[in-house]
């Protein structure tokens, strides 16, 4: 009796049903998107075939999907965790940049450190950078000064500027002075990659973060407290759960995950710190967490789907000469369809 209902997120039947539902929604969205492509004078059949060939049809395509999934998973956890307390974190993008920035600082400060010391250090710093950035809105919210949605959103505009300052100034690479970016990180700071692909250790970190998220929320007493706050803050407070502390901590943990995404992009994919490190992973993470309803398996599935969609954008740009932003139409279609399925559009 005691095992039942403690693990709603692992319950297989609802997860399968949800997957089926999303498949239907996805098919409908693809159909509408096909109409848009036709109206633009392009061939939707070719677009879909091209996308399929660029992603799922080859080992290389799949590996690229995993590369894209890595930051998306972490950015989604960054949103999903605070959401369980009823907190809305739209600052994933800024937290991602601060994580990348802190990790870069670690790599540049200890260029001679061996990999076994430097890799854990940059990972930790990446986490701390995002966590500290998210703790600011957390503290403001806990002190009942500023709503966390506003504060996290606005800090998104600050973080890339901090990164820009450093790559235009102290960390600017000497070799290509025309292009603002940091020099390459020392070899020891780069995340290991697998099987000659761009898939890096960040994927393992992301999967671990997702598992920790599920374990923390569903299996621990801390998760119980956090879910109680999300379910009924007044009752939680009356039952002696320290609201303010949990608010700061949950946002910090979420921000830390986004920070890890930034660290992964810098240390795993780009090899250096630069502007445009993230094409909006933080925001896409919000969509993923929201569409998945905070369920761990849902996040995994949605992150995979969104990785395909963003790859589709690149493919369409190359093969059909369509702008990358055309996939936003597809994303919007999916969002609308999901919203339409929920009465009132609420969660």
């Amino acid at each position, binding site marked *: *009796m*005691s095992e*039942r*209902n*403690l693990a709603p997120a692992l319950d297989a039947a609802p997860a399968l049903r949800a997957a089926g539902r999303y498949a239907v929604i996805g098919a409908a969205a693809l159909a509408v998107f096909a109409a848009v492509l036709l109206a633009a004078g392009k061939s939707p059949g070719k677009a879909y075939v091209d996308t399929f060939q660029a992603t799922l049809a080859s080992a290389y395509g799949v590996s690229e999907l995993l590369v894209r999934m890595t930051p998306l998973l972490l950015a989604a956890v960054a949103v999903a965790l605070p959401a369980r307390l009823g907190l809305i974190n739209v600052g994933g993008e800024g937290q991602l940049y601060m994580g990348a920035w802190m990790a870069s600082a670690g790599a540049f400060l200890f260029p001679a450190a061996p990999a076994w010391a430097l890799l854990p250090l940059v990972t930790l710093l990446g986490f701390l950078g995002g966590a500290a950035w998210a703790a600011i809105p957390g503290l403001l919210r806990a002190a009942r000064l500023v709503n966390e949605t506003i504060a996290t959103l606005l800090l998104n505009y600050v973080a890339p500027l901090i990164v820009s300052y450093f790559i235009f100034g102290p960390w600017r690479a000497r070799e290509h002075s025309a292009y603002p970016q940091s020099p390459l990180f020392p070899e020891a700071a780069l995340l290991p990659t697998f099987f000659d692909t761009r898939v890096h250790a960040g994927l393992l970190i992301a999967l671990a973060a997702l598992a920790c998220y599920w374990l923390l929320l569903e*299996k*621990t*007493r*801390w998760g*119980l*407290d956090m*879910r*109680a706050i999300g*379910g*009924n803050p*007044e*009752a*939680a*407070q*009356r*039952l*002696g*759960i*320290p609201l303010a502390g949990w608010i700061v901590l949950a946002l910090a943990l979420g921000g830390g995950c986004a920070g890890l995404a930034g660290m992964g992009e810098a240390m795993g994919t780009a090899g250096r710190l630069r502007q445009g490190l993230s094409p909006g992973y933080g925001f896409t993470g919000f969509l993923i967490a929201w569409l998945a309803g905070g369920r761990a398996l849902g996040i995994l599935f949605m992150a995979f789907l969104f990785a395909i969609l963003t790859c589709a954008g690149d493919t369409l740009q190359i093969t059909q000469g369509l702008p990358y932003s055309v996939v936003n139409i597809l994303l919007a279609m999916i969002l609308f369809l999901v919203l339409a399925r929920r009465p009132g559009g609420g969660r």
Partner: protein
Amino acid sequence: MTAPEKPPLVEIRGICKRYGAVLANDRVDLELRGGEVHALLGENGAGKSTLAKILYGYTRPDAGEIRVGGRPADLRSPRDARALGIGMVFQNFMLIPALSVLENIALFLPGLPAVLRPEAIARRIREYGERFGLGVDPAAPVRQLSVGDQQKVEILKLLLAEARVLLFDEPTKVLAPHEIEALFGIFGALRADGYALLFITHKLREVVRCADRITVLRQGRVTGGIAPGQADVDTLVAMMFGAGAAPEPAPDGARAPVPPGTPPILELIGASARAEGSETALSGLELTLEPGEIVGVAGVSGSGQKELGDLILGLRPLSAGSKRFCGEDASSWSIARMRERGTAFIPEDPLRMAAVAGMPVRENLALGTGRRYHKGAGLDWAALEAAMGASFQALAFPVPALGRPIGALSGGNLQRVVLARELAHGPRLIVALYPTRGLDARSADSVRALLRRARAAGSGVLLISEDLEELAELADRLLVLFAGAIAGTFPRGGWRAEAVGHLMTGSKEVTGV
């Protein structure tokens, strides 16, 4: 005097309305006549608001008849009521702060043309304003208005929409004293113009001042109607709170022997707390709660009961004075620490105050149990379930399905889960805030029995209630709270409903008006 043969504007006969186990209105008769201020008086929960909602078409009665202007009326929605000239001024104003007075009023008017003619509406606002003392600037944004002026806008809305019957739901609750004076002036002007007013309140003094006719409700029933001139505070108190006879105290439960020198469970020494917004500040409270004692707290709603409970529970900081728990200074203890040391809280609305609706019963039972069942990073669910099972058994409650979301339980069962959890660890102090409100008679009885049992076991119980009969039955001592201060203390059996009623309504000094 209006001509007696003229039919009343609104006449209701035999209105009954039942909410679950509670009979909110029981065969209520009422007449509203033009040129009269009709006061509807009663304690909280007496059924005043239900009656108003029925009159305004929000709720449909289970039985009874409403006649408007002599003809039977079927009020299915507020729109129907408005069409028949019935308007209502709510406790919480229905205004849009960003819009001007004129825009707010225009929004409410029926049959508005596509292109507004603001001058015409503004002229009517000024005209009505002068006639009834409702002067407000039509162009002013509502957010800049004082509460009293906002209320005037609400009244103007109804007048411009040509309502003839105006329902006021506790209109003085939000007003400052001088604004109350102004409102009574407006009442006078409206009455002189032939409007029918229903004035819902629980404040005796106001009723005596301005009503032409008074109907008193108690537990959903009309306990009396008084014609003008006969209003007398003593009679009204008797009608509101029951017969003047002293309530029969129930036989005192056996108390556990308390060893001499045991410190009181709870002491408040000059305890004060500040207030924010609509809260009530507490000032200089003195209270001692001995082991094996139930101290009752009476008061009309908004006298500081919830604030007192929160102060004791550790949710509200003291601004002055001190709080002692079992001999220790607990003035700055958090609620977590108070609970850890043996404080239980029985709320009026468990779904809002003590449970998380979406979580299963099992997880709800674990909330607020402090460190008792910690096991590594998780909880010792087996031990928790065993302890809670024992608690359910001790209270003779059936154990609900632990996997069901607690929000799916009935009100009574939900309260039982909360009780089982709160009483599972033999609390020393029990703070009960309207613990029987909204429960059916049987569940309410079992809650009372359980409080008596806790007393017998040596716990100290603070029982905050507005049910004087319940307090008479249970309380060893009764405190009366009025405006955040203790207005009086009575020993068990040493008080009469009338005396308490006077203190509760702050009407002591107007006795014999």
